[in-house]
């Protein structure tokens, strides 16, 4: 009885839970009571305008920084009580795609993908080769195995980084702004890959981005951050139908609204006539 209930608990419990998190950066409050969670097996989108702390949130979730108050729980374990070994053990269960790919520039594409495997497992070279080529094939870059990162386009670099992120078969895959700076073809490729990898591996996925259309096609559940809090949550359709001004402004890409077009400044007329800068 207890075995089956704990199995159900594990299956239904969120993989990532952020509760009442407060965090400041250089004295500026970034999060003031942030609450959100990523359900097991779902694609969770975290959206928000630039500067709302989306990447900071990922750093909190991955244990790179610690909140001033509140808790972050990943795989049911609070990050606050983790030592370094426990944190590394947790990170072995997750993969992360960085905004710029973050490929190791002195290694070939093949060696970049093989890097985490070489660091953590002692696989015979033929097995390692097969594993790496399989992952590169999955992202369509098996033919680029011998290239150096400097020879790749932005989209290709991100696909290699994706192959590296999945090479250890993670349970949780985190994408930090995966669509930034990509041409429409590369963006379409990344959108398809995120969905395909999510389904094929049966993993939990978190995508942080401000690209509304791409996330609408992917996400099971979305959060919209603004002013250090979650201002809206729901399916992409629910967010699109929201009447909240902050949500409407973001989803429709309006220049002015709760997020003001003008940075706070003194009176325009007084400044022009007063001769001050």
């Amino acid at each position, binding site marked *: 009885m207890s075995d089956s209930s704990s199995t159900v608990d594990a299956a239904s419990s969120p993989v990532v839970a952020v509760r009442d998190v407060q965090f400041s950066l250089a004295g500026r409050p970034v999060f003031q009571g942030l609450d959100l969670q990523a359900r097991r097996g779902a694609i969770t989108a975290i959206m928000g305008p630039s500067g709302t702390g989306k990447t900071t949130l990922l750093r909190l979730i991955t244990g790179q920084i610690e909140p001033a108050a509140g808790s972050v729980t990943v795989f049911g374990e609070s990050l606050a009580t983790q030592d370094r070994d426990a944190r*590394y053990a947790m990170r072995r269960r*997750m993969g*992360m795609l960085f905004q*710029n790919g*973050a490929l*190791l520039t002195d290694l070939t594409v093949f060696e970049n993908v093989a890097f985490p495997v070489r660091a953590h497992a002692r696989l015979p070279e033929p097995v390692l080769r097969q594993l790496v080529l399989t992952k590169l094939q999955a992202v369509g870059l098996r033919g680029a195995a011998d290239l150096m990162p400097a020879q790749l386009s932005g989209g290709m670099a991100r696909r290699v980084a994706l192959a*590296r992120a999945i090479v250890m078969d993670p349970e949780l895959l985190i994408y930090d702004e995966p669509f930034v700076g990509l041409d429409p073809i590369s963006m379409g490729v990344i959108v398809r890959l995120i969905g395909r990898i999510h389904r094929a591996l049966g993993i939990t996925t978190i995508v942080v981005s401000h690209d509304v259309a791409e996330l609408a096609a992917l996400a099971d559940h979305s959060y919209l951050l603004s002013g250090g809090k979650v201002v809206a949550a729901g399916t992409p359709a629910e967010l699109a139908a929201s009447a909240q001004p902050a949500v409407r402004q973001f989803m429709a890409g309006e220049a002015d609204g709760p997020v003001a077009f003008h940075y706070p400044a003194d009176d325009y007329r007084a400044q022009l006539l007063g001769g001050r800068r």
Partner: protein
Amino acid sequence: MIVAALRRVGTVALFLVRILAQCPAALAKPRAIVHQIHNCGARSLIIIMLSGLFVGMVLGLQGYDLLQRFGSESALGVAAALGLLKELGPVVTALLFAGRAGTALASEIGLMRATDQLTAMEMMAVDPVRHVIAPRLLGGIVALPLLVAIFDVIGLFGAQLVGVGMMGVDAGAFWSQMQAAVELRDVAEGLTKSLFFGVACSLVAVYEGFHAEPTAEGVGLATTRTVVVSSVLTLLIDYLLTAAFLAR
């Protein structure tokens, strides 16, 4: 200011302890260390050899000018050898090492920080200190004494080129007096200094690179600080070691 300086020294010392803890694991992969010896050492060879030659030639000129006033120009070999082995070789090589290999190390690691490569390693549960920092520190520590040895040899050749070839000092006297006067402990003194300088210069470079602000300006600042701190530290350590050797 003193508290800040002490705190910085403490941070660097803790960083060194962290690297030393990872050195056994790094030594298990000697290929990475050999690669770094090549990076720091072989790529600095031209500048070290050229500088060694010119420093030796200047030493030949100045030494001859000084010694001939006392009618002792045949001791030029001894003067050049002791000057190079004990002082000029280790110090000038360390200063050049800080400017060539140290800045390369600091900017490389700083750029890895700025482009999230170090963070990516952390996210793959791979310790960047073990995989990036320890091999570079060990490579630098091995490379510098080797460069010093090469600098010394080329420097002696330069001194001989000027002293014997141009100033007419007897070649037999030049080499035989050097052989008779220079002792193993003189060589050991230079090598000991070069080991200390190797640790200091490499540690400063990897520390500054690892802790660089992840911006273009931050990497530039880290590179500049590497040269300044390494150079001052080299001269300070040189004084302390020289005083310690003379006090024995």
